[in-house]
């Protein structure tokens, strides 16, 4: 192998692609899209805090309305003095969202409160009203039953599970399992998409050289294995470039997103003259727990190994196909393992330590997607990570050997797309 030739091929692959419009647009649009999503979410939060659904309470008992107003004074209005007809008119004119009449029956009997409204607000609104009423009516019932304070407290207690992680070194940490589960899934999906998109670049590049009929000119100067290696390295360098730009853009966006959202909310709060909103905390989705460096390093390792493992196969498929449209059937042997890994990921995401998750994360064709998901979520024993990496390297050697055999013959076979039978013959040659 001549490194000079490989480098020349790499350089061409990289430069022509990096200058292409498609690449430039994708590189710009992804962070812009990300910024847009964050922007929309900030906008929704800001906007949501302004919009209020006003529910009029006509409270015949006199015990329910005050507690409700205590819970949310902007939503619940004590309209006990008004007649039902006037309340109906208010709702009809959209002056208020709806009204609820509370009578003795709601407390003494098992009769549900009834919300009369125009139908706006949606599920979230209904559920929060429901839970507010459940709480308040239960409190009234408890107090009427004259149960001891002790029992009242028992009923009022809301039990949640708090979790802390104990590291092997004996340190207790805040547990971000839920956040990390999403990170794990995200990383898995990123690798899944990358394998397909960068692999697709390679397949199309190989087919392009075949259909342009330049490949034989190149082959008279470069060994097929050098051409293949150069191509894979070139597209790999492209992937690294794109990801570096994206990661920098994301890092930048997430650092400025918080303060920007803050100032937006402050300004909107001061405009509405409501000071309590300004004191509100950042919305939860902008409060990123820190991701460990080791996870990023593992992501890079599994990303690169996954890319290498599959990209040579994508090149082999390109060499066996005669036109862009003929790749579908040939793609199957690659698509199936990636898709299986992708589906298992939705199981792994929920139970990362199940036998299915552990075993399939060590299978080399699944590792790039599943192991990174597991590493993100749970504490994976090092022997599992180590053996999956080792197996992937060995498998890469195998796929590279196989692909170079197919590629060598495929690039010079014109006229028709090869069948699997043909490909088998090429390998045996």
């Amino acid at each position, binding site marked *: 192998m001549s490194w000079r030739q490989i480098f020349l091929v790499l350089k061409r692959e990289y430069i022509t692609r990096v200058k292409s419009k498609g690449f430039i647009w994708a590189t710009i649009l992804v962070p812009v899209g990300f910024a847009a999503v964050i922007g929309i979410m900030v906008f929704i939060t800001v906007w949501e805090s302004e919009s209020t659904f006003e529910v009029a309470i006509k409270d015949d008992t006199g015990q329910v309305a005050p507690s409700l107003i205590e819970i949310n004074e902007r939503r619940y209005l004590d309209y006990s003095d008004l007649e039902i007809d006037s309340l109906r008119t208010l709702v009809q004119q959209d002056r208020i969202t709806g009204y609820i009449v509370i009578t003795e029956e709601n407390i003494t009997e098992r009769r549900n409160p009834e919300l009369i409204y125009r139908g706006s607000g949606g599920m979230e609104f209904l559920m929060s009203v429901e839970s507010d009423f459940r709480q308040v009516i239960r409190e009234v019932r408890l107090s009427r039953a004259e149960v001891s304070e002790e029992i009242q407290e028992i009923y009022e207690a809301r039990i949640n599970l708090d979790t802390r992680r104990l590291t092997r070194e004996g340190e207790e940490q805040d547990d971000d399992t839920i956040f990390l589960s999403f990170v794990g899934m995200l990383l898995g999906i990123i690798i899944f998409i990358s394998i397909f998109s960068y692999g697709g670049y390679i397949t199309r590049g190989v087919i392009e050289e075949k259909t342009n009929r330049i490949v034989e000119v190149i082959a008279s*100067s470069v060994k097929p294995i050098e051409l293949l290696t150069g191509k894979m390295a070139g597209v790999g360098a492209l992937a690294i470039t794109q990801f570096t730009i994206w990661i920098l853009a994301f890092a930048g966006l997430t650092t400025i997103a918080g303060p920007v959202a803050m100032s937006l909310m402050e300004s909107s709060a001061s405009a509405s003259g409501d000071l309590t909103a300004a004191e509100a905390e950042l919305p939860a989705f902008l409060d990123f727990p820190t991701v460990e460096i080791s996870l990023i390093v593992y992501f890079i390792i599994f990303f690169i190994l996954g890319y290498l493992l599959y990209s040579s196969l994508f090149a082999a498929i390109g060499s066996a196909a005669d036109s862009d449209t003929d790749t579908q059937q040939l793609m199957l042997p690659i698509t199936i393992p990636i898709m299986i890994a992708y589906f298992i990921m939705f199981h792994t995401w929920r139970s990362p330590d199940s036998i299915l998750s552990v075993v399939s994360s060590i299978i080399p064709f699944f590792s790039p997607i599943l192991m990174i998901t597991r590493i993100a979520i749970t504490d994976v024993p090092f022997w599992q990570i180590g053996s999956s990496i080792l197996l992937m390297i060995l498998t890469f050697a195998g796929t590279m050997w196989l692909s170079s055999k197919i590629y060598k013959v495929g690039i010079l076979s014109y006229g028709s797309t090869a069948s699997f039978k043909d490909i088998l013959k090429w390998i045996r040659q």
Partner: protein
Amino acid sequence: MTTIDVNNLSKTFGKTKAVIDASFEVERGRIFGLLGPNGAGKTTTIRMINFIMPPDEGEILINGVKAGPKTQRWIGYMPEERGLYKKMKVGEQLIYLAQLKGLTASDAREKIRYWLKRFGAYDWHSKTVGELSKGMSQKIQFIATIVHDPDIYIFDEPFSGLDPINSELLKEIIIELREKGKTILFSTHRMEQVEQMCDDICLFNNGKVVLTGNLRKVKKDFGKNTVLIEFEGDPAFLDQLENVRINNRSTNFAEIRILEGLDHQDILRKAMENTEVHKFQLVEPSLNEIFISTVGEDNIKQKELAV
């Protein structure tokens, strides 16, 4: 001195024996024609000389060195299936191809400038190949083949797909290269092209070399036993001739190969009895005729010998 020395070359693809025990030598400073019908094994042989695929058996020596990455740089190769990157600019593309042949970028740039100017194509430097016409991109293809100034040039079916202007241009280039002392090997299934240009030939059929040597000598060995006749009148007399093979025939012209025994004067006599003879000439056989009589009529598919 031998530039390309092919010894007992064999190559098999699955069950197909593409090349069987082929040997020939290409001398320095000469134009060598590799001839034969489609599927005879020419392209496979050429690919092995270019080290694009390895031989199963046998050996290829280029200037005494076994074919390999090193010898690739001494060769300029224009394959039958040829093309360029459509989206790449002409200049960048030529630099890339020249660099792959071992030139430095600055060296390549200088030579590319020379050739683009020479072909009146200097303005195309910054255009992509996709923007060029077919004829224009063929010229770029020539430049890509010769830009690294190798000693050996290999053209596989060079004239197929070329427009007449570029065909002439390529012939000029080939002749000019020979005058500079370069060695040229080209393959074709169109025998008549070779007659004008080749010094030496090698005939391929079904993967085997059936005849190789100096074109003049090959023809001389076959003797002056072909008659070219032009006449006016009923050509039916041609069908009555025995022991001949009529290769090229139209209403008032025929190329007749005399096989055995028959005196060419007999043909003339018969022709004069039946028609008005305008021209009667005794010549060396055409390459096409030599090919047919070497491999035997039964062993070739006539339609594959293009006219």
